[in-house]
């Protein structure tokens, strides 16, 4: 009798420990690739050496891997670790002083910004956009190779008001396309995500009365199909006929990709169109010069701009206590926002290069990073 009761007690403990292990295992996964790269580039020169630690946005993961590799092959003595633990976790670690920089899909809000004075020697953090990526509306509808949607129709589809593909609202926007009567399965992210926040922000700003919920990382409805992560959404859309979802455009694969209405024409999610949307966006008012937080202009009518875009930031301190850390952060961030760095990310992650208007001020913001 006693023996069995001990066994019962063990099960939940083991489960709890296993959960902890699996969470930390996610964080370690990227380190291997970075150390491989530093060995391969051992012959390369470079004046920097040391270890740089960052954490945050999982959207940036592929780009960060490319940057880490590129930076380490130019500076053989440097190790850069980026833990794609999620924007929220990354910002929390940065504010606690546990990492040197954070990657985040959202800029620090007004309550977080003062908190950055603690790890940054009394100054507020700098934020530079480093990763611009169009979010695609991916769909699986055999026989329909071209789909055009206005924000209003997209909002009605994702909120469950339009339930079949041959709904008059969709028909009106796709003249000449034969739409089947298949039921629509709208797939959203079941985990909290910056992609969801950008998508709901887009719908909130552009769809008017069809989408009244505020932007948020959590899906606002208790309907539709939820899937875990970008890969989960792509998997669900791939396996379900008549389904539509939103995902990073580089992950769309063989799925159909809808064009969205901007002004009076329809724009497809290309890197150039995404960069253009970031280009026409305004800075968040009331921020320091080197805090490049952007209010993305979702309602732009600029031709060829694709406003359903995710802009992700690097968050770092303007000064570091340790001179070598300051040099490393400056060097790494400078590489990331440079033409080379942006091209490497474009190749690895399909992101859009920073438009010249942003890359100029980003690199001057980064140049000011110094030792205290």
């Amino acid at each position, binding site marked *: 009798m006693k023996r069995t009761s001990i066994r019962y007690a063990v099960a939940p403990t083991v489960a709890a420990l296993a959960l902890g292990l699996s969470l930390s295992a996610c964080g370690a996964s990227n380190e291997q690739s970075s150390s491989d790269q530093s060995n391969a580039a051992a012959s390369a020169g470079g004046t920097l050496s040391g270890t740089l630690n960052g954490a945050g946005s999982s959207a940036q993961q592929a780009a960060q891997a490319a940057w880490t590799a590129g930076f380490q092959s130019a500076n053989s003595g440097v190790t850069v670790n980026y833990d794609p633990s999620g924007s*929220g976790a990354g910002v929390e670690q940065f504010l606690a002083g546990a990492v040197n920089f954070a990657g985040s899909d959202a800029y620090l809000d007004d309550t977080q910004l003062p908190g950055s004075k603690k790890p940054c020697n009394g100054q507020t953090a700098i934020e530079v956009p480093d990763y611009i990526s169009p979010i695609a509306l991916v769909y699986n509808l055999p026989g329909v190779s071209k789909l055009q949607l206005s924000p209003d129709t997209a909002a009605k589809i994702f909120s469950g008001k339009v339930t079949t593909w041959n709904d008059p609202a969709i028909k009106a926007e796709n003249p000449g396309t034969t739409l089947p009567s298949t039921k629509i*399965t709208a797939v959203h992210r*079941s985990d909290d995500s910056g992609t969801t926040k950008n998508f709901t922000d887009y719908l909130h700003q552009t769809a008017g009365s069809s989408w009244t919920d505020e932007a948020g990382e959590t899906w606002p409805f208790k309907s539709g199909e939820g899937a875990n992560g970008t890969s989960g959404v792509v998997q669900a859309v791939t396996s*379900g006929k008549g389904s539509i979802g939103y995902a990073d455009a580089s992950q769309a694969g063989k799925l159909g990709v809808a064009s969205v209405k901007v002004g009076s024409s329809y724009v497809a999610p290309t890197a150039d169109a995404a960069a253009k949307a970031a280009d026409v966006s305004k800075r968040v008012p009331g921020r320091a010069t080197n805090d490049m937080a952007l209010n993305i202009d979702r309602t732009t009518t600029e031709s060829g701009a694709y406003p359903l875009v995710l802009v992700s930031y690097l968050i770092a301190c303007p000064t570091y206590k340790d001179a070598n850390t300051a040099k490393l952060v400056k060097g790494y961030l400078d590489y990331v926002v440079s033409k080379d760095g942006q091209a490497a990310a474009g190749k690895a992650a399909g992101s859009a290069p920073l438009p010249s208007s942003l890359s100029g001020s980003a690199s001057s913001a980064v140049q000011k990073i110094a030792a205290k």
Partner: protein
Amino acid sequence: MSRPRQRVGDRIFFNITRLAGLLILLALAGVAIFLTTEGLPAFTAPSDALGGAANFATYVAPLVFGTLLAAVLALLIATPLSLGVALVISHYAPRRLATPLGYLVDLLAAVPSVVYGLWGLAFLGVRLSPLYGWLEQHLGWIPLFAGPASTTGRTILTAGIVLAIMVVPIITAITREIFVQTPTLNQEAAFALGATRWEMIRLAVLPYARSGIVSAVMLGLGRALGETMAVAMVLSASGVVSINLISNTNPSTIAANIALKFPDSTGLAVNALVASGLVLFVITFLVNFAARSIVARSERSLA
């Protein structure tokens, strides 16, 4: 009788085992203390930290419902299946077949849950979706199958089936051992009275193994309640309370919800997740205590 002289080896061994026993209690206490202190702020958290729920009770209730529903579905499928497999191994199959079959079932327990998740997501769900369509069409009048049927098959029923397969090796391994231990005399007595094999199992094996079966099922239930990754991947979770088993709008489970929401949560939202973990912890304990009392009662009645 005089106290036997203690040897050094005895004392060392006794202390090592005592240390092991204490360590596991310490780990358990550590988890409980962490969950309580980190979870407490959530009980007074405002609704925007709780995903829009008015208070913590309304936040966690749908999750508890989903956790229990998925676990119950899993056990409904896994229990008869496991008992069948265990009986085949212990009483029906020839020894030549039974041993490898036992190994194979044990092997199921070694498959990582992410792999089950992938399988449920990309293979099982897709193949079950026509069945869900059929269920909606023909049995749609039963609230369980009200539909609309999911086209991707990522329903709570699929999650229950995946969980069941994960639970089967646990229940099978334990019940198999107990069935084998049924006293040969009892079994032969049943045969001597003219019982068929099935009657012998019903009269001799099952009553003997009853408490073992209950504890095996409860261990399986513990696994089903706490399973995280497979559910997070397979289930299309919306946080509703619904007994509709075949639609794409399903209740989430506590463990899966923590895994999905943790990476991008900050501040009080993290506390809320930890507090939901505390609720799962308490549920698991209650289940274990309930199982113990059932086992104790059936042991008394047998005695």
